[in-house]
């Protein structure tokens, strides 16, 4: 049975009047109830996409359904909360008054304000003016405003941007907490570990195009998944030997060999190396980091001619040519 989608786009494209193609034929599917990480380098088109989904921008072509309705329609806005780019509030109003303004626009009772302030740990500072807030407090107030409607879909654009390490940890914990109760969270970020720690599935965008989508493990698998790392002396002798065992699956990275083979072959490979007089000082399974995957995917997207991105789980035969050891 097909899972319900909180966000669905078809060929969504945005070309600005300046000629910049910010989002290019984007097909995005965010399932209801998941934390979806929207990953991409700066300038990849993440914020433009979120603005399109929020109805702040009009698409050049393509369509989208957000929370069951057209982006920017009252039906869609009523079921979504968003913090797009910078948390923007009235500097002369207190945090609490800013939320009162938002609550009135949204048509929600002001009794919702105190619970969301408590949730983001801003109750004590709510009476102070917004212009006196630190970056972390502004971010938290932005999340509080997005939560006022009790939305089914929460869109957060780089919510840990500008936060100190403690604030980052707290924000991640909050995002995980927000997922409870079946809420969908669409989280954009250029921070790989943030996405890895908080998201169920990830979409990678580069130059306005979705270049990969899947779970973190699926993305790793796409780019070669795990590998055997061997540190041995002499290295050239070890390389010749393993190439005869697993042809085409070996590459040299510094003073180590990386073998794209099933890790269960580690014992037999080790026996052959030792039997041929090679000193093996290290042999272990090397998990490819999300960073490797990200770099590979976004660098690949710079190629002038590309095929459409494969679906999640496809492309396991791609070699991790651009990968690096952890």
């Amino acid at each position, binding site marked *: 049975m097909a899972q319900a989608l909180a966000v669905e786009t078809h060929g969504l494209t*945005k070309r*600005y009047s*300046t000629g*910049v193609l*910010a989002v290019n034929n984007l097909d995005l599917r965010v399932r209801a109830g998941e934390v979806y990480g929207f990953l991409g380098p700066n300038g990849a088109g993440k*914020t*433009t996409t979120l*603005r399109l989904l*929020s*109805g*702040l*921008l*009009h698409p050049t072509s393509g369509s989208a359904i957000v929370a069951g309705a057209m982006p*920017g*329609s*009252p039906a869609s*806005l*009523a079921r*979504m*909360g*968003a913090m*797009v*780019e*910078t948390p*923007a*509030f*009235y*500097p*002369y*109003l207190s945090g609490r*008054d800013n939320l*009162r*303004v*938002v609550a*009135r*626009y*949204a*048509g929600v009772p002001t009794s919702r304000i105190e619970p969301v302030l408590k949730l983001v740990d801003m109750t004590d500072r709510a009476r102070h003016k917004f212009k006196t807030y630190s970056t972390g407090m502004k971010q938290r107030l932005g999340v509080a*405003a997005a939560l006022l*409607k009790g939305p089914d879909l929460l869109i957060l654009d780089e919510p840990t941007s500008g936060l100190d390490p403690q604030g980052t940890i707290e924000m991640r914990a909050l995002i995980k907490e927000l997922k409870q109760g079946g809420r969908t969270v669409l989280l954009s970020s250029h921070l790989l570990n943030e996405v890895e720690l908080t998201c169920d599935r990830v979409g990678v965008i580069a130059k306005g195009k979705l270049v990969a989508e899947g779970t973190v493990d699926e993305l790793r698998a796409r780019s070669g998944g795990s590998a055997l790392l061997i540190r041995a002396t002499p290295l050239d002798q070890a390389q010749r030997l393993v190439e005869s065992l697993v042809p085409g699956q070996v590459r040299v990275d510094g003073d180590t060999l990386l073998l794209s083979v099933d890790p269960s072959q580690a014992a037999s490979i080790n026996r052959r190396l030792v039997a041929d007089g090679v000193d093996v000082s290290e042999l272990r399974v090397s998990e490819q980091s999300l960073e490797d995957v990200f770099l590979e995917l976004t660098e690949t997207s710079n190629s002038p001619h590309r095929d459409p991105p494969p679906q999640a789980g496809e492309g396991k035969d791609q070699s991790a040519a651009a990968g690096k050891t952890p």
Partner: protein
Amino acid sequence: MIASLRAESIKTRKRWANWILFGILLAWILLLTYLTFFLVVTLSPKSIQGPVPASVLKRRLFPENFVPSVLNAASSIGAAITLIFGALSTASEFGWLTVQTILIQKPTRSAVLGGKLLLLGVATLLLSVAMFAATALASYAAVTLDGSSSAWPAWEVILKGFGALVLQLTVWTMFGAFLGIAFRSAAAAIGGGLIYLFVAEALVGGLFRNTPVVKEVLKFLPGINADAINVAFPVTIRDSTASTQLVSAGRGVVTLLVYLVVFTALSLLIWQRRDVGGS
């Protein structure tokens, strides 16, 4: 729209800049228009007084002339202040990026702006009441201090005068709001609006008033039409200058109403269609 109106009321009430603007306007009327003029006319030696006696000049400040006095203030400082008020209200949303915050709440874009413009209209109406009341009180104080007597204008004149005041100030407020949306910058909107008001229309229009082509253009400008309405409320101490006006008071009213509709419609059109954020 009601949700937007309620939200706007918090923002407008708690913004100090608005109170400062309104304070400047009322202070201008009370201190410059009334107090300073009263003191100069009352205390200046007879040797430097002009051909018109001080006792006659002072009648400009008395209740019989409070309607033309307040309309005179409306066409100069009142226009500038309400233009700034309207421009600040809309342009600041772009400057602070709060336009993003308010447009991702529940109401449609037109409802959000509709509430904002409605609130601007209500605030301008309240400002008009304050201006009218302050001017009436000042005129009463002037005649009382002078120990003279002066009759209040007829109710009909007062009501028409109040209507003229509200119409003019609302047009300038909406002009400011339109400029704020068009320029998305408070500085550009206020600068552009004031330059239009005091340089393009008042100064250039005044200098080239008798040039046939310019004269035809001037007939369609809001300031000229507002002035045409104002001279329909003449000061009692001199003849009406109605004959020197380019258009009649009736046409002035119609033209200002058209401007009100045009500024509102253009604001809605741009607000509805414009992308928010991005390059």
